[in-house]
């Protein structure tokens, strides 16, 4: 989610410290794993905010600015992806996604969580999770279709 191991280790430590501070507030309203995941995600989002990304809360992370959203896909069919996707290109494209889209995409498509689990973790609706995932995939498709070579053409 943050793209580098040292920072991920710092955030792991911060998540455990938060867990230590807040565990007494766990009331069993949800599964402990869901509560813990939400706590860890909030630690990551706080860090992204500190780095200057315009994230205040999960709600805002879930609602990227309109200009960040993907367009409808009525492009020419000959611009579709063909064959296998280059892993590094896809990782770069995932890294460039708005944080809210990236979060849902990683939770669902990379880590394999179901929409109902994501909705519980992020305190959003299942429909919202599905919609954000779809938009994330559309944005990735746009990024992979354009590709770095075509972007620099005059």
């Amino acid at each position, binding site marked *: 989610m943050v793209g580098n191991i040292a920072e991920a280790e710092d955030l792991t430590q911060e998540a*455990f*410290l938060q867990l230590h501070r807040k565990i007494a507030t766990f009331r069993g309203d949800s599964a402990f794993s869901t509560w813990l995941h939400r706590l860890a995600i909030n630690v990551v989002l706080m860090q992204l905010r500190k780095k200057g990304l315009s994230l205040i809360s999960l709600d805002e992370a879930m609602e990227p600015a309109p200009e960040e959203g993907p367009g409808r896909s009525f492009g020419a069919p000959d611009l579709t992806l063909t064959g296998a996707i280059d892993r590094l290109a896809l990782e770069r494209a995932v890294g460039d996604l708005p944080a809210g889209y990236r979060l849902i995409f990683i939770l669902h*498509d*990379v880590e394999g969580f179901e929409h109902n689990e994501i909705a519980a973790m992020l305190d959003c609706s299942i429909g919202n999770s599905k919609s954000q995932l779809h938009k994330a995939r559309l944005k990735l498709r746009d990024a992979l279709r354009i590709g770095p070579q075509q972007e620099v053409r005059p």
Partner: protein
Amino acid sequence: MIDGKNTMSCAEFQDRMPELIGSGEKAAHHPHIQTCELCRALLADLETIAEAARQLFPVVEPPEKLWAKIESAIKSEDAGEDSVGVMQPN
């Protein structure tokens, strides 16, 4: 593009795609997909991306030294809390 078979446009189909894909239904069996090359290509691309995502970001286990660091941070935080509010002898 209007699908003559079920009069669903690409825009309407694409609006329904998140629910269609997310519900586990076979989106590829939808009548619109059978007749629309553009949306068929879009669906194939999204499935390719989802498939490729499983190979991304191999899980990195935190190193042992990190656990030691976390334990130490928790202990020092506890020690700090213990000292707060404790009356110091004159």
